[in-house]
């Protein structure tokens, strides 16, 4: 039995330690906001925070997480009130929405590290794949969230 700290709550899971955290979240814990897109850390749909740092949970073995704090999209805010979510809504970022959990997790981590990111910072941090093509709005919304945070 492995005990995980997910969004501030303890969860006991009976999974092999080599199981990727992504599948433990989705299938053992039942939290499906974190998405499967590639399984090889290419697309970022599975992005979560481990002690605040963004990680791709599809290649992260659950046995390696220990007592680190896991934050998933469900833990960002209870009411879509995080500045990133607010900016995402204001700028109508999502299309199909499938990648957006991961995009939001990457953006939240970026802003935590760099409250006023440059375009180059955004280029470097936002490597998640979006097939619908919301990249331009993601960039705009990150700048907007940064401005809101500053105000």
């Amino acid at each position, binding site marked *: 039995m492995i005990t995980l700290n997910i969004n501030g709550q303890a969860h006991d899971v009976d999974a092999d330690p080599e199981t990727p955290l992504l599948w433990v979240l989705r299938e053992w814990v039942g939290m499906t906001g974190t998405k499967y897109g590639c399984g090889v850390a290419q697309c970022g749909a599975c992005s979560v925070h481990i002690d605040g740092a963004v990680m791709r949970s599809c290649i992260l073995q659950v046995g390696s997480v220990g007592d680190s704090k896991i934050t998933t999209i469900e833990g960002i805010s209870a009411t879509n009130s995080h500045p990133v979510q607010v900016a995402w809504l204001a700028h109508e970022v999502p*299309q199909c929405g499938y990648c957006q959990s991961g995009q939001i997790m990457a953006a939240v981590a970026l802003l935590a590290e760099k409250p006023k990111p440059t375009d180059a910072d955004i280029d470097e941090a936002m490597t998640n794949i979006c097939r*619908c093509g919301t990249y331009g709005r993601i960039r705009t919304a990150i700048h907007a969230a940064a401005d809101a945070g500053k105000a």
Partner: protein
Amino acid sequence: MTNSIRLNRRHFMATAVAGAFSLGWGASQASAAAAPGELGIWAVIHPDDTIVVRIARSEMGQGTFTGLAQLVADELDADWKFVRAEYVTPEANYASKRAWGDMSTGGSRGIRGSVEYVRKGGAVGRAMLISAAAKRWSVPEAECKAALSVITHTPTGRTLRYGEIAAEAALLPVPTTVTVKDPAQWTIIGQPMKRLDTVEKLSGKQVFAIDVKLPNMLCAAVAQCPVFGGKLVSFDAAKIAKMPGVRHVLTVDDHTVAVVADKWYLAKTALAELPIVWDEGPNAKVSSALIAELLKGGLDAKEAGLGQKIGDFATGFAGAAKKVEAVYSTPFLNHATLEPMNCTALFTPAADGDRVEIWVASQNGDASLAAAAEAGGVKLGAVKVNKLHLGGGFGRRGQQDYTRQAVSIAKQVPGVPVKMIWSREEDMQHGYYRPITMAKMTAGLDEKGNVTALHARISGQSILAYLNPASLVDGVDKAQFQGWAVDEFGYMAIPNLLIDHAMRNTHVPVGFWRGVNTNQNAFYMECFIDELAHTAGRDPLEFRRAMMGKNPKHLAVLNAVAEKAGWGTKLPEGVYRGIAQNMGYGSYTAAVAEITVSAKGELKILRIVASTDPGYAVNPDQIRAQVEGSFVYGLGAALYSENTIENGRIAEGNFDNYEVMRLAAMPKVETVIVPSGGFWGGVGEPTIAVATPAVMNAIFAATGKRIRSLPLKDQDLKRA
């Protein structure tokens, strides 16, 4: 055109059985008795004023869920803040002989294919509400006015909220004739309303098909014969029987095996250890090099299907002062929706007839129902389809192969819901690929640089020959010529024109990929036109303008994009422009790209300006979103993506070797919407046709190199 046929022959038959096509807006055509507050069949108004608009098409990101609701709500004179949307179920559509029309969502037809009947559906509701209010007040209907979800009796100023009168209105007969508004009266159509499906997508709460959870549900991972056309011979289930969570190892169809386990991760892990024997069949030696040779043979073949003939090419070409010839090519491309193919199915045996229920992301609810019935061996009326928003479609989810597989698995585990998910690798290697084609472009110019003759010979694979051979006309795939009609490419002033197609089919499944054949054809045509402009020594914009005088809509979008981009103005050192235009899916589009190419040959796209005339613009912000997305999807393919064939199978497995556009490489897209009115054009697909040629033409301007073979990553842009 292409997209009017979405189903392969087997499905088409099954769907045809599903009932005569009848578009309706009245309750009389639906079998269900009117629900409280149900006004006709498209809208239900609750006592709290909430308006539920029913949506028959699928939402895959393109915004149709919102756009269709706008069409109904405007005719209802609704207050938008009360509007919600929900899917019509395919079983209700089947039971009512398709009262809600065509559920197929492709060909950029979501809005333009529904616009007439859904607006009438809204107008019916408004008429019923006014009628009910007039009755309650015992006044003439003509004295009552509807606006913002309130009916006002104008002489007295009395008012009723829609929520107060809807239940009474629902009891009235549904009008058989209604008039829809004149565009000048629109208050919701044409406005940038916020999408109705955003909030849940910000918090992880949106349930996609892959997220479905049901009591006692098992999960399935599948392996399909890696070589297309190959078969499953055998597998050794005993080898994995004791692995964690494994419940069943099943034959799904003649080329697919499934491992069913407690969890998908366990199923996938066990599947990787399953010994499987395939019969790879006759295609196991096919390679991309062989396919290229096949296509090259078509470029000069005597036999070719005719697409378009004006004047006489040979005569016009023989007398030309200058002659230009170029060969272009494009690869196979997977759709790579970010949500891999998946479907959950429950097969329930019963004495009075077996039943099937599915949970699916589908671009065609009607076809999903038919596929589930066929795979389950049950009656069409014994299927229930739960449509979930799609994690990307792009044409892939019009096919129902994954639906059939899920039902086939579930049928072998009766009474237990089974969620089947394809791994990314399975998804990458078992698609319906954008077809591979080549084109030999030949043209003659007179002394003044006017085009006297142009021949486009396409060689390559036909989508319809694979998906629906019955739709070929004398062996010719007319859809192959999508974009090659004069009113599509827009150049009226070519006196001698010949467009033909040497069909060269491979064993690789092909299908409709966002933009379909306009992708390849506009790349070939618009880059070649650029070559001709260069040969003529003329400006690419001016050269195009001179050839399209009688096509004012083409000219208008071209001028709009040129003006916004500042075509002809001085650019910073090292920055170059390219331009392209096209008409497809009923809409006119044009684009200008600004780029640099470094000394090392690295491309940087700095700016994209796009213009589009879709006739009427239902939601300008969602049109902008679709234009932005068209460049990401189109340029990702043009710059990075290709599927190649090795030993009969797709060589690429994941996003590490099937690269796509990412944020850092994508510039801002500036969209100019120039709706000229009078027609309803598509939005999701038209713009993708101009994305690639605009950038490739800019690369020529920067480097003098013509990019005639995609993707760009295989080309060297270093200056000689």
